[in-house]
């Protein structure tokens, strides 16, 4: 048995909350992910300043470049929410276009991160060069891995919608993928401020 949900055109399992069970479960997952990233960020902050003989964050960070990649990720959040909206409205082809644009921007962000990691490596910052290197690569690397998973997820949505687009029948799937993508975005909002901007401001 199923019930109409808030958007009026999907079907969710009956629960006593009135919420799509997949959505509720996914929010629980995101809640746990928040704790995961908090632990990684705290680890980074605990060892802040322990650069050993390696380069310091001030010597490495290129804030203008990271600001551009941050902008790209923020705009990808806008494009995925427009994809969800289009799918819910039944604009299947438009939804597919927005999801494709989001995946593309995710790839651009990953390209920026690959460039940054390569540049830092050549400057002498490795996973084992200092505690700063270890915590920085683990923290931003896990975020990048989440972005990569998001891109794969979006590409799989595009594959499923290759014929009829992403219409109302797939709106729930696009929405869940969108929630994940936004979560990756808000994690970066915090990392960009704490790891990069505060370092530049100090």
């Amino acid at each position: 048995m199923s019930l109409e949900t808030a958007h009026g055109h999907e079907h969710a399992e009956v629960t006593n909350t009135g919420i799509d069970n997949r959505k509720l479960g996914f929010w629980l997952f995101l809640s746990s992910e928040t704790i995961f990233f908090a632990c990684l960020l705290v680890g980074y902050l605990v060892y802040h300043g322990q650069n050993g003989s390696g380069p310091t964050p001030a010597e490495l960070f290129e804030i203008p470049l990271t600001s551009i990649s941050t902008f790209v990720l923020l705009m990808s959040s806008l494009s995925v929410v427009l994809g969800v909206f289009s799918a819910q409205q039944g604009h299947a082809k438009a939804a597919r276009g927005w999801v494709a644009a989001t995946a593309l921007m995710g790839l651009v962000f990953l390209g920026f991160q690959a460039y940054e990691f390569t540049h830092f490596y050549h400057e002498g910052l490795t996973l084992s060069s200092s505690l700063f290197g270890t915590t920085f690569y683990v923290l931003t690397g896990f975020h990048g891995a989440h972005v990569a998973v998001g891109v794969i997820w979006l590409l799989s949505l595009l594959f499923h919608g290759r014929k009829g687009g992403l219409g109302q029948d797939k709106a729930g799937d696009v929405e869940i993928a969108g929630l994940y993508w936004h979560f990756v975005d808000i994690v970066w909002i915090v990392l960009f401020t704490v790891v990069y901007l505060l370092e530049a401001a100090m």
Partner: protein
Amino acid sequence: MAKIQDRTATQAKVVERSHPTAKTFVGVGLVLFALTAAEFGIVYLEGMQPLVLAGLAIFSVLKFILVVGYFMHLRWDSKLLTWVFAVGMVLAVAIAIAQRYVNLA
């Protein structure tokens, strides 16, 4: 029967608050762009140093709230989802505070 009525009422409440438009999302996107530019500006503009810490904290919290509230639909969805996410956030902040005390000890 009463349970079914409660359930229907809850769902009706969710539906009632579900009216974001594409224009709303584009507007939020523009605000996010402006806030990111402001973050960049406050770090690099001369004379802004006293405001940097407070400014960055305010701007990033605003960006966080905009994405979670508008893009992730929490503003329109059931309050239960907000509570579910809030529990994670509270635990995350508690971990950071606990670390601070452990570090001081």
